[in-house]
C-alpha cells in the first residue's frame, strides 16, 4: 500500500491515488454480482493489458476491515488499475448493502471528476439455460443516447424489460441523473457458480468498445481453476446479494410491452 500523493473523500469512500491514473476514456467496473461475471472480466482485462494498480478505494464504514496482500505488498480491498486510456475497478470483497448507494454515487462522481467518457458495468444475468450448455447471450442497457449508440457497436442485444438489483442498478441511476455515459453489459451466466465463459463474452464487447484486442482463450481454458479459486467469493457474494433483494430480478415488471 504505497503512500498516496492525492486523496479524495466522496460519500465516505476514500480514493487514494498512488500511481498515474491518467485520463482514461473507459472505466470498467468489476463489482461482484451473479456468476462473478464482472470481477472475472475485470481481472482478465487488467492482467491481459498488464495494467498497474494506481488508485486504492477504502471505507472504514462500508467495507469490512480487510487488507489484501498481493506478492507481499499490502493493498486496498478495492483498486483501480489503469494505463491512462483504459481503467478497471476491481474489488476483493463484496460491498455491504448499506454501502452500495454511497459507493455507486462515489464511483459515478469520481469518474465524472476524472473525465472518464464511458463507464462500463459488467454483470451476470442468471440463466438456467447455461446448465444446458448454451453459449451465453449478451445484452446491454445504456444511461444516455450517446452510450446507447456506443453499445450498439458491441453487437449485443438491448435489454428490453426487467428489474435490475444491486450496485450496478444504482450506478446506472446515478449515471442517468448526472448525465454520465454508462453501459451495463449483462451476460447470461450460471446463477450459483463463477462463470468465466460469460465473462469472456463481456470482455469481447469491452474490446470492441475500446477498439483493442483482448484474447479470451485463457479465460475459457482456466475456467475450472477460476471456479475453484473464486468459490469463497461466490459464496460471500450470494449471501450479500440475497440480503439486498436480488430475488426481485426474477419478477416481472408491472408495465409490459
Amino acid at each position, binding site marked *: 500500500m504505497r503512500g498516496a500523493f492525492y486523496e479524495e473523500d466522496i460519500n465516505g469512500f476514500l480514493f487514494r491515488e498512488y500511481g498515474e491514473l491518467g485520463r482514461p476514456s473507459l472505466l470498467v467496473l468489476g463489482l461482484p454480482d451473479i456468476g462473478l461475471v464482472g470481477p472475472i472480466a475485470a481481472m482478465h482485462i487488467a492482467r491481459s493489458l498488464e495494467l498497474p494498480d494506481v488508485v486504492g478505494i477504502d471505507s472504514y464504514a462500508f467495507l469490512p476491515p480487510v487488507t489484501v496482500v498481493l506478492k507481499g505488498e499490502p493493498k486496498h480491498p478495492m483498486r483501480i488499475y489503469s494505463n491512462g486510456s483504459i481503467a478497471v475497478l476491481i474489488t476483493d470483497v463484496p460491498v455491504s448493502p448499506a454501502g452500495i448507494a454511497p459507493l455507486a454515487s462515489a464511483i459515478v462522481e469520481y469518474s465524472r471528476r476524472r473525465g472518464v467518457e464511458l463507464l462500463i458495468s459488467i454483470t451476470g444475468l442468471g440463466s*438456467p439455460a447455461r446448465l444446458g450448455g448454451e453459449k451465453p447471450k449478451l445484452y446491454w442497457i445504456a444511461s444516455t443516447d450517446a452510450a446507447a449508440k456506443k453499445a450498439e457497436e458491441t453487437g449485443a442485444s438491448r435489454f428490453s424489460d426487467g428489474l435490475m438489483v444491486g450496485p450496478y442498478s444504482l450506478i446506472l441511476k446515478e449515471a442517468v441523473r448526472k448525465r454520465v455515459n454508462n453501459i451495463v453489459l449483462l451476460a447470461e451466466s450460471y446463477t*450459483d457458480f463463477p462463470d468465466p465463459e460469460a465473462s469472456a463474452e463481456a470482455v469481447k464487447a469491452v474490446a470492441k468498445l475500446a477498439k483493442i484486442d483482448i484474447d479470451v482463450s485463457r479465460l475459457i481454458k482456466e475456467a475450472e*481453476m477460476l471456479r*475453484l479459486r473464486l468459490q469463497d467469493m461466490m459464496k460471500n457474494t450470494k449471501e450479500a446479494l440475497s440480503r439486498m433483494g436480488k430475488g426481485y430480478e426474477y419478477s416481472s415488471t408491472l408495465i409490459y410491452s
Partner: protein
Amino acid sequence: MSFDDEIARILRYFRKRFEEMEALALSMLGYSPLREHPAPDLSYTLDRLRDGILEPLVSILDEGEHLVVAISLPGASRDTINIRVYPDRIYVEAALHKEAIERALGTLHWSRYVRMYRSTIRLPTLVDPSTAVTTTRGDIIIIKLRKAAAQQP
C-alpha cells in the same frame, strides 16, 4: 457458594446487562458494521479446514416434474467422485488434485490443508433416486431427478 463463585456470578450478570445495552444501542443506531458485513462463520470455516474439506457450490433448479441439481467440483479427481442420491438429499464427496489446489489457490496459507469436497445437499422436495440421470459439463455435475409421485405439480 464460594467467594470466587459469587464474583463469577456478578461478572456474568454485568456482562449480560452490558450485552443487552449494546444490542439496544446498535438497534437504535440502525446500523452495525458487524451485521452489515456478516463474514463467513469463523468457527464453521475453521472446523471444515481442520478436516481439509471444501463444500462445493450447488445450484438447484425446479423444472416442474423434475429437479435439476448441479454441483461444481473444480479441481476434483474425476475417478474419486462419489455421489449418493436419497429421496430427500444428495451426498457428494470427491478428492481434490493437489496440483489443482496449488494452481488455483497459490500461496494462500490455508490451502495446503484442503484435500477434498464433501457435502450433504438437502433437496427442496422429495425425489425418486432411481430416476437420476447424470451428465457433466466440465467440472459441473448435473443430476436430473424425477420428483416423488406425491410432489408432482
